[in-house]
């Protein structure tokens, strides 16, 4: 697996750490990264995987540094505990590209992520519109200690409060666990049978359990029919698209795994080349903003509904090909 | 090298119940059995005696298939022993009461009795309990078959194991020190049962350190010494002295304890004389009582005196002993050492006040089995083995060596785990621990349980010597041999003092007192 190292494209190698290997979304991301590396976008050291463990991540990054990496791509799932590592890298003048999360502290060359607050915002607006501003919505929150989960929850909550005060939100802590979500949803349905909206913060974990439960309870009514529960998901994985086509869920927000990978490598290359960026719109329809500890390229996260579910530009629709 | 010319009561006709030849068993470096043999004729009751660590229990585990011998042959009724591991087959040949407890504490008495004999199909618990009750009744043990085995007293537990072994209907039964934990009454009940079985032609291999029992029960005796076979003879032809000599390998100096006693009595007397009418008691219990165990008692132990607390099962004697050493908090009265009251219910304070303790059950309270002999022997003196609360290994080993040699503990060295010692030697380690602090008062509960004759004398001698040097000792026991060492014996029965004897009591008086039938006077000078 070190074969790809040999054909050094630009000067110096990039150390790439993959955050975890047990989630559909991240595995797609991983595969895009591999594609990119194979395609010679950059020459990379052997990929490491921190299995969602900050200790491993820090160790891996240090190993990259020891092995002479000139730039580092990581996706720290823990945005706090990466701080001192970022500072070390800054001292060593190794630029760091942080994918998907925005480190709380420590210099980064570029943060490549879609705006998670926007996710919550969009979900809220969609549900609010669909429910005509009233009803009961169940929200599967991710882990409380995950920045992405928190951003989505906060944005969703504040938007609901501000714009759809008549909608009652039942927030359920799930720790990103499908079975927990299913159990709590089942309980909630027993106490509030009139739930008519669901927002799941991660389709990857919540989709199947939720569908299975609703199936069992005969609550999977096609859109438009009475008693239909409006469901909006998040991630934009192929299963969600299937569900949308099948009319089981209404929408999802496509978290662009492909763009994450593409621009992670893009900025890594740029960093090797010593390029610098500043805030403002980019050539790829996104927007770079300034954050206290660097820049953040906020990639677009399109809302996917029945209407645009077949859009070939959506990453999930490209998986089959190439 | 068994002695083939072993005289057998009933001719050569039936094959021997068990025959073992050239059995060798090593435990790591320790040679536990060195080419030994034994032949138990059918229907014979055969005694196996030897000093602690001679290899008796090891032979037992070889004969019952628990250990595979490194060399040698074992055969039952003439046919070779079953394959190792095929425990079921072994059980059909031989039943055994092991020296170490083989009850499952969390199971009921009934289930322990019929362990793995619950029959096929559904277990009928009520029926099982009924059978258990009958079985136990044969031994006159009043135990609720539904009680947790772990909650039984040591004695009752022992009887459960005996009843289990004898209930197999095996033609050959091994009993490894079954009487070590029994009181006189219990031993009677056991022996009547065994004699019944003898009459039915069941063969026994009987291991005990009470030589008298050997003479009472057995017709043949085999002696092991240091893992080797020494002799096999008919009991009738072998005098006690010769037997002891065979075991110890030296001219018997039995009755050592006796000299000790008489000597001690003078010294005690003399000191009494010098110190005037009321010498300061080393240990005094005034109104000491424990709810539910024993009524308040008063007694004082003078310097140079050994006091005996005689009590059978559930007499409260042990409870009294355990209260004295602070393991149980007295509900009435107090304990004084040299006039100063001891904080009740606190072992450290009792130790500090100079009370040494030999607990009743060495496995429960005596030893940390996983740890070395040295560590166990010095457990209560860790504060004396180095400056500033340190424990120096050198001093620990040194200390342990002294104990090992003075108590004649058979071990491969201070570093050997106690769990590898033979039963009797483990007991010696416990006593070493009690003596480690040079206690002013030594409270010993059944100090000689499972200890061989010679060691018994030397141990009792040790207890005496505590008294000799002007301190005092209390022996809680129902073994007459232990009590003989005492200058004074208080007999408890069901939590009450029922009689008090000066030394020179007769066995009959004391035994009947322990059984609750005080024969009034404490006179009678013959032994």
């Amino acid at each position, binding site marked *: 697996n070190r074969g790809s190292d040999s054909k050094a494209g630009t000067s110096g190698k990039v150390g790439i750490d993959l955050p975890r290997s047990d989630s559909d979304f991240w595995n797609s991301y991983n595969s895009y990264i591999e594609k990119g590396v194979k395609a010679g976008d950059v020459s990379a050291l052997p990929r490491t995987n921190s299995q969602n463990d900050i200790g491993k991540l820090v160790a891996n990054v240090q190993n990259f540094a020891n092995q002479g990496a000139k730039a580092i791509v990581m996706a720290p799932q823990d945005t706090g505990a990466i701080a001192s590592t970022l500072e070390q890298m800054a001292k060593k003048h190794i630029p760091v590209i942080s994918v998907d999360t925005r480190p709380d502290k420590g210099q980064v060359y570029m943060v490549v992520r879609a705006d998670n607050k926007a996710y919550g915002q969009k979900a809220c607006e969609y549900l609010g519109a669909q429910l005509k501003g009233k009803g009961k919505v169940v929200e599967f929150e991710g882990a409380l200690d995950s920045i992405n989960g928190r951003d989505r929850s906060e944005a969703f909550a504040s938007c609901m409060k501000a714009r759809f005060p008549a909608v009652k939100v*039942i927030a359920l802590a799930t720790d990103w666990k499908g079975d927990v979500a299913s159990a709590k949803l089942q309980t909630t349905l027993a106490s509030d049978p009139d739930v008519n909206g669901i927002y799941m913060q991660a389709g990857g974990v919540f989709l199947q359990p939720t569908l299975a439960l609703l199936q069992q309870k005969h609550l999977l009514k096609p859109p438009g029919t009475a008693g239909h529960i409006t469901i909006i998901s998040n991630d934009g994985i192929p299963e969600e698209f299937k569900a949308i086509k099948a009319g089981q869920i209404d929408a999802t927000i496509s978290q662009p795994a492909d763009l994450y990978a593409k621009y992670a490598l893009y900025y890594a290359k740029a960093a090797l080349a010593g390029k610098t960026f500043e805030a403002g719109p980019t050539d790829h329809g996104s927007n770079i903003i300034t954050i206290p500890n660097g820049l953040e390229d906020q990639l677009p996260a399109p809302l996917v509904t029945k209407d645009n579910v077949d859009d070939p530009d959506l990453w999930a629709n490209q998986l089959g090909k190439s | 090298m068994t002695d083939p010319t072993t005289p057998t009561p009933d001719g050569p006709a039936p094959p021997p119940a068990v025959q073992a030849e050239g059995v060798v068993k090593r435990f790591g470096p320790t040679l536990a059995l060195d080419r030994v043999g034994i032949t138990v004729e059918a229907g014979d009751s055969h005694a196996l005696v030897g000093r602690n660590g001679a290899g008796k229990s090891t032979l037992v585990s070889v004969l019952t298939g628990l250990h595979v011998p490194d060399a040698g042959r074992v055969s039952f009724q003439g046919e070779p022993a079953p394959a190792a591991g095929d425990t079921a087959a072994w059980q059909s040949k031989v039943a055994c009461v092991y020296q170490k407890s083989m009850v499952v504490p969390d199971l009921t008495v009934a289930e322990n009795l019929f362990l793995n004999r619950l029959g096929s199909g559904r277990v009928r618990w009520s029926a099982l309990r009924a059978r258990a009750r009958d079985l136990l009744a044969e031994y006159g043990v009043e135990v609720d078959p539904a009680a947790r085995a772990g909650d039984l007293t040591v004695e009752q537990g022992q009887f459960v194991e005996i009843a289990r072994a004898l209930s197999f209907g095996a033609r050959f039964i091994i009993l490894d020190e079954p009487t070590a934990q029994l009181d006189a009454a219990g031993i009677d009940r056991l022996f009547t049962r065994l004699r019944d079985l003898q009459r039915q032609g069941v063969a026994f291999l009987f291991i005990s350190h009470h030589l008298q029992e050997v003479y009472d029960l057995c017709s043949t005796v085999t002696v092991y010494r240091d893992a080797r076979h020494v002799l096999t003879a008919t009991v009738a032809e072998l005098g006690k002295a010769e037997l002891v000599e065979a075991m110890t390998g030296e001219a018997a100096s039995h009755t050592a304890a006796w000299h000790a006693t008489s000597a001690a009595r003078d010294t005690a007397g003399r000191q009494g004389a010098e110190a005037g009418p009321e010498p300061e008691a080393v240990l005094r219990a005034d109104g000491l009582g424990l709810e539910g165990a024993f009524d308040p008692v008063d007694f004082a132990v003078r310097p140079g005196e050994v006091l005996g607390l005689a009590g059978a099962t559930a*007499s409260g004697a042990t409870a009294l002993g355990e209260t004295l050493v602070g393991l149980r908090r007295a509900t009435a009265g107090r304990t004084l050492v040299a006039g100063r009251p001891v904080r009740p219910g606190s072992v450290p304070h009792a130790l500090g006040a100079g009370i040494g303790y030999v607990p009743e059950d060495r496995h429960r309270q005596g030893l940390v089995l996983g740890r070395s002999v040295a560590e166990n022997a010095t457990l209560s003196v860790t504060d004396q083995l180095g400056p500033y609360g340190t424990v120096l290994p050198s001093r620990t080993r040194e200390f342990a060596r002294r104990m090992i040699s003075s108590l004649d503990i058979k071990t491969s060295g201070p570093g050997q785990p106690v769990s590898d010692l033979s039963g009797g030697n483990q007991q010696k380690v416990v006593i070493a621990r009690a003596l480690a602090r040079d206690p002013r008062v030594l409270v010993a509960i059944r100090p000689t349980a499972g200890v061989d004759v010679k060691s018994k004398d030397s141990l009792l001698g040790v207890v005496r010597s505590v008294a000799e040097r002007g301190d005092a000792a209390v022996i809680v026991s129902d073994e007459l041999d232990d009590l003989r060492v005492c200058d004074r014996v208080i007999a408890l029965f069901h939590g009450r003092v029922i009689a008090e004897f000066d030394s020179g009591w007769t066995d009959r008086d004391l035994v009947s007192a322990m059984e609750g039938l005080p024969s009034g006077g404490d006179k009678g000078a013959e032994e």
Partner: protein
Amino acid sequence: MSDTSQLTAADVAAPDRAPSGAPRLHLSRYRDLSLIPVILVLGVIGFIVSPAFLTSDNLIGVLQQVSELSLLVLGEAMILICGRMDLSLESTIGVAPVIAMWLVMPSSGSATYHGIGLLPGWTSVPLCLLVGLLIGGFNGFMILKLRVNGFIATLGMLTMLRGLQDGISQGKSIVEVPRSFSYLGGASWIGAPAAVWICLVLFAVGGLALGYLRHGRALYAIGGNSEAARAAGIRVDRITWIVLAVGSLLAAFAGVLYVGHYGAISSTQGDGWIFQVFAATVIGGVSLNGGRGTLFGALTGVLTLQLVVNVTTLGGVPPLWDKFLYGAIIIVALIISRFASGEKQD
């Protein structure tokens, strides 16, 4: 009783033994019922916080939610009773179905997951169970033959099997599974999910076996004092081995139910469950040192844990304090049960 003359000591002992004997009995029985009061308390609280609590919908829901966990608890309880432990159950529930899928799913086609299509789809359930058996067998081999420390060995297996699942499934959830595989977990018989009936039956069978069959009782003897058990002619190693295998078998079966229940083989299925499994088993009165406890107790343990979740959800606990409350309730429950049984726990 033979002749009285020699019975004095025992006779006298009897009076004060009797009382000490009786309570014991109750105690040991209490030990398994000690969670009943806890469950009652939870029931009352649930009833107060929400009328929905006592609806059959909700209660059946609770049962269904614990169905998979309870099978792991069933297995672990038996393993603990015979004095061992197996941490790898939480990974077996995930890897067994995945291996089965890998063997039966066609190597090409529309399905998002491609296996090697070695065997027809209907074999998937038997395959899954077989894999469970093999895993348990291997655990037994390490623990009983190689004599390595069971805790670490199964902890290593836990990690290894989870890794194996990631490797084989490429970390994906597997959504398309053969009909037969997802049937049991999804079906519902006479008004309640099939899984619930199955679990209840399995617990009943297990309970009877442990209570009334010779080999069942042997587990207690082995766990309580394996040396005594061996001396009594019980085939300690063989039975332990079988128990370990059955435990993993149950875990694999739980995997089958899980897939039907949640509609996919999740890549994190069972992840982190082992704590709950132990919590449920031990709080239910099964001793970590072996030889004590009943399956019924273990079952009450699982139900208690899930009822806590159910009640806190109905009560609408703020997510931020959800976990805190859960832990606190566990501790309170533990204390209640300890004083309900009046027995010191160790």
